[in-house]
């Protein structure tokens, strides 16, 4: 067996040779060895955590869920017949998102994200049934995007929507 302090062969049953065992009885030497050992581990660990933290901060998107917060012009109010859903594009941070927009009359609009809340398949609006239906697992939502059937855990996500100067302004996802 090798002595763990000097590295030379020893025939002792412990992992210390006689000489080093003698040295080790002076506790100062043991604590220095321990310090160096743990020091190396700690420094290595800190460097590793530093890289990992940097990577996570860099990779985690800065603006999720609520979108960019910017309002996007999606055309004049007149382009939206009352009571009919139209599929529009909302451009977020690098992505395009489908949003069903409906004119409820009196400058009131409703905007629903078209990703099913179950596993984010694209839902489709069926005017004749007045329902949104998902092709993946059959989730269904009513005209207001409320969940009525299937495995989805909640209703469709809403987007901010408002009318400014006769133009429909579509914003990010709210809830």
């Amino acid at each position: 067996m090798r002595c763990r302090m000097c590295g030379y062969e020893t025939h002792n049953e412990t992992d210390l040779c006689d000489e080093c065992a003698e040295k080790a009885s002076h506790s100062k030497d043991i604590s220095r060895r321990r310090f160096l050992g743990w020091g190396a581990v700690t420094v290595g660990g800190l460097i590793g955590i530093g890289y990992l933290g940097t990577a996570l901060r860099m990779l985690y998107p800065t603006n999720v869920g609520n979108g960019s917060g910017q309002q996007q012009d999606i055309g004049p109010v007149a382009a939206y017949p009352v009571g009919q859903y139209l599929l529009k594009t909302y451009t977020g941070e690098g992505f395009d998102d489908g949003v069903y927009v409906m004119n409820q009359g009196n400058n009131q609009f409703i905007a629903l994200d078209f990703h099913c809340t179950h596993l984010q398949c694209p839902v489709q609006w069926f005017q004749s049934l007045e329902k949104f239906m998902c092709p993946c697992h059959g989730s269904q939502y009513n005209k207001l995007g409320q969940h009525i059937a299937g495995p989805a855990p909640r209703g469709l996500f809403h987007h901010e929507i408002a009318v400014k100067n006769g133009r429909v302004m579509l914003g990010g996802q709210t809830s």
Partner: protein
Amino acid sequence: MSAKKHQRQSFLDWLDERAGIKPFMNEMLYHRVPRIVNPLDFLGLATLFVFINQVVTGMFLAMFYEASSQTAYQSIQYIMTKVPLGWVVRDLHYWGANAMVVLVAAHMLRGFYVGAYKKPREITWITGVVLLFITILFAFTGYLLPWDQQSYWATMVGTWMPFYAPFVGIYIAYLARGGTYISGLTLTRFYSIHMLVLPALLLIFLGIHFAMVLKNQMLVVEEAEKKPKGTKGLVTFYPYTVFQMTMLIVVVAMTLLILALSSHAPLLAPADPLNKAHYNPVPLWFFFSIYQLLKYIPAVLDPLGIIGLPTVAVIVLLALPFFDKNPRHEPRHRPWAMSIAGVTVAAVVALTYIGAMNQGISQPGGGGGASQVATIAKPSFSADIEPIFQAHCAVCHSGSNASAGLDLTSYASIQKLGIAKAPYQQSILWQKLTGKMQPQMPLGGPYLPKTTIQTIANWITEGAPNN
């Protein structure tokens, strides 16, 4: 000794003096093995070969592929149509990826069957399990790269699955996507993970896996080595086993090539975040089992199916060598381990099969679309009609939550609602499929080809028999 042989010998001596390779080479080449090795014991080698195929073809694909949402799809098209032999290389990579998943799983099942996870091979097993997950991540990240409808929507669904994990779920989903939804940012990070992160991880774990196999020997070798010298049926590894291994590699390589030449990797329409063509998302085939399971369990249990079960599976696989302490290797002395594993494998295979049927998969790799098929004059319910319903209608019209209370996977339900009464022109089934009665089915399309609808009409004319 001829001059040439002498030259070779002196080179080996020169090398041995510096690298000390002789004892290692002797051990490697001349250990005793059975003359006939069960081909299943070569599954690891087959996997290794396919992995090398992935590395080589991947390197060349990367020289033409452009990872951006604007150019990825066109660069794949360019590889397939303009680059000489580009289509072969892409098909080899595609079929290699599928083969990797199959071979790694088979290799693991074989290791389980012969009890190769038991002492002293625990580390081989654990690194093997890690390699299985790395393989799945390879397949998942690689799937997005063509940036077509199939890859875009499968990744949309796949990256949302962590959402069902407690506390950290939504963060993992956004981290994987690099945003709220799939975008060019997802593509570049998947590309980097596929090309840099996973290969590095794989080499680390493969190194350990391989070193442990060399150190502890394979089970079959260990048993052969224990036998006394001169036992019949034992030979040296080189050249006998080496020859068998070469033959196996020839078989695997030929299989890959035949697959690549006969069936092409799919490339659907370019990814459309607005899904204007109403493409129905289809998961990767090795997720079919989970996908299908989700249809059977109530919605409140979804987190269990999506997160719980896979997590339990991972833990069980990793910890297997530590809680299965039965020292026996032979399957007949491990009734519990064999039964539990048998039931699990049967369930996964069955769910995968049913899942595949429900996707309307008409060709390997899947397109999910309705294929043009000939009309059948006297169709049988079980052989002709039910598969159509399974593939195109069962997503909504099956199970306890079936739309309109109609379960098209059950003959009784079809009878009860009387939707298939002759003459076919007056049956609700035919009217719905043709659009005579709105809304036309399958809801949102793609609608069934005329030939298929005529098959159903013929069945109704025959009296809609349950045959």
